[in-house]
């Protein structure tokens, strides 16, 4: 008995070890692939096809869930209460929908019948009576308003830029470039948004007026109606006035130069020194330059990976000075980023303020300074 147990333990240990080895191998393989992101290799990688892999898998899952539901519906019926009594009196306070549907309930409650009164008796000599044109009942109107609100929210992505182009044509190419998103730069849209939020909240509050009146009799329906009508408008006005005042105080949108200054001076961690590094941001990292770099090809799969080092913000030391500035990276770059010019700039920056004293005919290694001694003033 004890021998069998020991054998079992050994087997489980061996299985665990083999699994761990496999995981380590997988990790190493992934790391290696990350270094060798060749374009040609990437094109050979293919995903799983839709048919039959994904289709069969989804079918199995669907039937699995369906069978569970069938089992539950057939053998575990829901606990039902007693049947409803249609002759019972209306409950007070009335039952309410879930909280996230209160605004729709509020729409139905706020709506009144739409009528237009035509004072025909004002016209002399005809002897006509007043007519009231009945346009829409409160039920229809309240239901339509819900659809209108949802439709507006859905329509925002489609009409937002078109409206922007109409509202502020001096802003520029709003259709293609979009408009400012920060509230302080666009108080009108911010006010509209605040109006919508306040309106939804007030509609929700209005919909439970009977329940409120049960506990606070002084909050009448008329008061709530007035709040629902004017409250959101007041909120929007306050928002607009506040943001517009902030904007006039000097919180203006940043220009490109100001934004660059912010990056260079404000954010120290980025070490963005020159406008050229700003231009490097055009790179979408296709890796063509890295593939064709002769230095990386010949030596230093890891250490002298010049371009990779640059994007890791390690563009100094051996990697920077190993670039032979042949310009192959620029020749293949789809974005025409002049990488060699960047290397030139970085070299000039690295030796900025250095002296040429003693650089003439001294043999390397002699004198007080050893070869390779570079002291940076940082």
């Amino acid at each position, binding site marked *: 008995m004890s021998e069998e147990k020991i054998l079992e333990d050994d087997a489980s240990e061996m299985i665990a070890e083999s699994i761990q080895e496999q995981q380590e191998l997988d990790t190493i393989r992934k790391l290696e692939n990350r270094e060798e992101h060749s374009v040609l290799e990437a094109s050979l990688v293919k995903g799983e096809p839709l048919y039959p892999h994904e289709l069969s898998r989804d079918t199995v899952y669907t039937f699995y869930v369906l069978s569970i539901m069938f089992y539950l519906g057939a053998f575990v019926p829901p606990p039902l209460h007693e049947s409803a009594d249609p002759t019972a009196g209306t409950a007070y306070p009335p039952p309410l929908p879930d909280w996230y549907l209160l605004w729709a309930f509020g729409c139905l409650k706020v709506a009144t019948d739409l009528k237009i009164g035509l004072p025909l008796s004002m016209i002399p000599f005809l002897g006509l009576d007043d007519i009231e044109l009945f346009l829409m009942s409160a039920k229809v109107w309240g239901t339509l308003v819900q659809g209108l609100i949802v439709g507006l929210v859905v329509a925002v992505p489609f009409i937002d830029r078109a409206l922007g182009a109409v509202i502020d044509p001096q802003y520029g190419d709003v259709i293609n470039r979009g408009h400012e998103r920060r509230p302080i730069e666009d108080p009108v849209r911010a006010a509209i948004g605040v109006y919508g939020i306040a309106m939804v909240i007030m509609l929700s509050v209005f919909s439970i007026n009977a329940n409120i009146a049960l506990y606070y009799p002084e909050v009448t329906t008329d008061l709530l109606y007035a709040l629902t009508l004017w409250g959101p408008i007041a909120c929007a006005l306050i928002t607009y006035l506040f943001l517009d005042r902030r904007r006039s105080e000097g919180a203006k949108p940043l220009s490109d130069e100001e934004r660059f200054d912010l990056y260079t001076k404000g954010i120290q961690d980025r070490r963005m020194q020159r406008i050229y590094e700003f231009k490097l941001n055009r790179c979408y990292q296709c890796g063509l330059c890295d593939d*064709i770099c*002769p*230095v990386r*090809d*010949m*030596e*230093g799969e890891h250490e*002298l990976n010049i371009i990779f080092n640059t994007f890791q913000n390690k563009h100094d030391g051996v990697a920077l*000075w*190993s670039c*032979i*500035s*042949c*310009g*192959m990276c*620029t*020749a*293949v770059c789809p974005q025409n980023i002049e990488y*060699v010019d960047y290397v*030139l700039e970085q*070299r*000039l920056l*690295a*030796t*900025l*303020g*250095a*002296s*040429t*004293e*003693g*650089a*003439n*005919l*001294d043999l*390397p290694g002699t004198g007080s*300074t050893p*070869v*390779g*001694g*570079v*002291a*940076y*003033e940082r």
Partner: protein
Amino acid sequence: MSDKPRQKTYARTIPHPLFERLIVDDAMNKESNEWKPERYHEYGYFPGCVDFMDVEVKFTHLNKGDADHASIAAASIKLLNYADIDPLVLDMNVFKCSGHDQLWQGNLEVFDALKEHNLKRLKESGIKIITCSCAECYRTFAVDYDLPNTLGIKVEHITQTLQGRGLKFKAPENVTVAYHDPCRLGRMMGEYEAPRDLIQLVDGATMVELENNKERALCCGVSSMMYCNDATKAVRRKRLDQGTDAGIDLMLGGCPKCYMHMQCMLNEERMNPEEGHHHDYEMMDLMQFLVACLEDEK
């Protein structure tokens, strides 16, 4: 340990060859006299630092090359004369190195000194077009000096000057040649066709393209004289192997540095046959090749 902060001595961090040090010494010597050419020349020919290069090649034991750079300058002048151009030779007696290597080594102070001197001399010379047989000088004058916009001097590579002038050449024997694009002339200045057109003019020379050509041309490995180590030698050997694959007799370059280093590599391989690397052809500068193919001596 002294309390004084250590002075930055970047210049020693880069393995400067002898001739780079001579150039730095030359650049820091700010004495200069008035100079005026004897007569008016439209064209100026800038041979570059070929004299210093010869010093490097012949008097240091570090390399195996025996390239004759002065013959590039002589050949260029001869070809310019053959094309009925009378150039003013802007040699090292009055001019200084263009400063390409110093700039790319980050040696901005030396480069500025060289640029200041050369701009002063260029103003005094009164030339309209400057032509260089060195691709690096060509790029430096055109881009870093920005001569067309500052002094109104047009900058040309010598292949562009000789192109389209009705020259005729005849090779002494039938040869297969390949053109090695220098990175400064090709990728940085976009000139691929002018040297090829010149080679096509040579009767008896068959031009083949190496496996990597034009935009994808491999580098000789030592632009701006940064290093000559195993990595750059491997780059060069890869390029030379492509020449062997193409079955050429001559590889032609448009830049003295390519010529110098390729030729040094070929010599080194011949000296050490036990290493097993052998390339059965010669490296020449395009100007040397063309002057050897001149039909009649003028």
